């Protein structure tokens, strides 16, 4: 009985892993040069910022909330880091903590509003989206290129792993974040409280869990992740631009949903999100390899995948509810007969 329930909980993640393997397999069969170790590693290199954002978003969605500000928070941190580096000539040792603190501060501000005044997360974070985007323009309307040697070396560094294939420092950062997040979500009080809030907030409060503090922390953590992702993104583009990361909120929500996290909260995993990102990356690579399709098709494909996974989630829930109902009815039958 127990193994069965574990299987069921892992089922959405398994579906995602299967989807990834099938898509990657199809790509390998259809296109020459698709199946290569470096190509697989490139999936991680090109999407490291999405992995980091996805981690924060997973916590938010498991708690039953949503964070629409991640894309413009990323843009704001690219702008802030590039202007601090190039215009104010700060040292990277100061720039990185400042940018991360900014992310944490904005995230906690939104979390505080959501928690203290019981406001809908999507409105507060939607306003956050515009606030951060507007602040980008306050910093500069134009692109700021980064020449800083530390940034340059971080952008060009290749860490060799086995047989001529390499990863970038960004991947290392992403992997560290992922491992930390898996630990936090499974083995800390904070992580368990996040799941409890998503399952049923009222029950979590009645159980005496620190719901208020945790909710603020969740958004602060998401803000931290998106500002860290912004720094990683500047390693990738070596510039700051106010329009960076437009539409990344859906990309990120998509990867979380594809990874099997329920939008209603309470169920989900970090590892699922990682595979969600891999699926997302594979779609992009497939469209590039296909060659004739315009890159905007990625957006449409992602929208479609989110749709499919949301429908699947609803079906799962409906089936679960129906089963729970029939079990309840089965037990209630003698009572009904007695009446």
């Amino acid at each position, binding site marked *: 009985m127990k193994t069965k329930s574990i299987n069921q909980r892992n089922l959405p993640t398994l579906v995602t892993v299967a989807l990834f393997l099938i898509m990657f397999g199809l790509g390998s069969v259809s296109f020459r040069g698709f199946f290569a170790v470096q190509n697989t590693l490139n999936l991680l290199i090109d999407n490291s910022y999405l992995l980091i954002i996805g981690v924060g978003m997973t916590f938010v969605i498991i708690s039953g909330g*949503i964070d*629409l500000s991640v894309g413009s928070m990323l843009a704001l941190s690219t702008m802030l880091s590039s202007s601090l580096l190039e215009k104010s000539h700060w040292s990277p040792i100061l720039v990185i903590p400042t940018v991360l603190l900014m992310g944490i501060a904005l995230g906690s501000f939104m979390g505080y*509003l959501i928690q*203290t*005044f*019981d*406001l*809908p997360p*999507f*409105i*507060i974070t*939607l*306003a*956050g*989206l*515009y*606030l951060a*985007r*507007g*602040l980008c*323009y*306050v910093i500069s*309307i134009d692109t700021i290129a980064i020449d800083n040697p530390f940034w340059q070396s971080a952008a060009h560094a290749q860490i060799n792993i086995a047989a001529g294939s390499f990863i970038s420092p960004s991947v290392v950062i992403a992997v560290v974040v992922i491992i930390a997040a898996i630990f936090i979500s499974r083995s800390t009080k904070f992580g368990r409280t996040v799941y409890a809030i998503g399952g049923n907030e009222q029950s979590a409060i009645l159980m005496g869990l620190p719901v208020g503090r945790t909710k603020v922390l969740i958004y602060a953590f998401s803000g931290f992740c998106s500002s860290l992702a912004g720094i990683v993104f500047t390693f990738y583009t070596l510039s700051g631009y*106010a329009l960076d990361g437009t*539409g990344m*909120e*859906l*990309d990120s*929500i998509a990867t979380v*949903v594809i990874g099997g996290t329920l*939008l*209603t909260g309470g169920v989900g995993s970090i590892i699922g999100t990682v595979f969600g990102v891999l699926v997302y990356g594979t779609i992009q690579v497939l469209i590039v390899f296909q060659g004739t399709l*315009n890159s*905007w*098709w*990625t*957006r*449409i494909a*992602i*929208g*479609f995948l*989110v*749709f499919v996974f*949301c*429908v699947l989630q*609803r079906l799962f829930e409906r089936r679960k509810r129906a089963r729970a109902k029939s079990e309840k009815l089965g037990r209630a039958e003698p009572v009904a007969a007695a009446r």
Partner: protein
Amino acid sequence: MAWWKSLTRRKIFWPLVALAILMLFNLFFTPHFFRIEIKEGHLYGNVIDILKNGAPMMLLAIGMTLVIATKGIDISVGSVVAISAGVVAMLIGGDLHGIPRHPIFASMAVAVLVCTVAGMWNGMLVSRVGMQPIIATLILFVAGRGIAMVTTNAMVVWLYTKPFALLGQGYIFGLPFSLYMVVVLLVLVALTTRRTSLGLFIEAVGINPIAAKFAGINAKNIIFWVYAFSGFCAGIAGLVVCSTVMSADGNNAGLGFELDAILAVVLGGTSLNGGKFYLLGSIVGALIIQTLTVTIYAFGVPPEISQVVKAVVVYIISLLQSRKFRSMLTGVFGRREFAT
């Protein structure tokens, strides 16, 4: 003081006060703000510009009001505006001599139809599949821009067909043509919601969908059509946007409109928690936003920064609508009653 009380109790009162304060500010600080001239046979001036440029937002706000009244939200409207502009521009075609590829009316009808279908898609996801409105419309929020870009082959399409310019730039009896469109749509919607029981049904669904269902209201259908109508409004707004600049830019057409539309509705007194809605309030809300934008322009601040101001306004309004915040306020000021 009875008349004062009945006046302040009206929902439209506070949005009008906000608009008046903004106007008063401009009267003192923006030179020639209220000057209206007659040029080339039509009225010309800042105030007329606000009415003209605010028209797409007013159109969107009408659709958004009904969606928010059902406790939903539609953040796809900006992208749907881009789709509408893209479709109509591709159908009319960028012929340099201004010869339309397809009849203008048919092209416009097809564009609005496509957008209504987009709205129906949202409505289906929310009412039939049972997705949260924010996620359901988020799909089109991002995919819609992709669709618009694919429609226009990722290029900016310029139009040279003169008659089409009437929609966004034309004037009738001295007033902008788009303003008449807003008035017609507003009157039609006001009549169908207030003179029939439809408005009551929509409010009932927003206040308590389960109770509404037990009262015999087909909540699912109401939610479905409300989103379809929002798509329809976005389609018309897209035509006006496209005609104003005589081009379709899938990337920038309608960018950020969703927040403005939501803001307009909320400023107008409709609560994000659903229920009672105020169409005229939303129109006033749209005018407030447009005036704010013009004011920011007049001060020489880059228009992009107005996003910060708008975000702050959203925070303030959300706080005012929060019950917890209001009870905190009443605690501070020691008043038992707080006007709602």
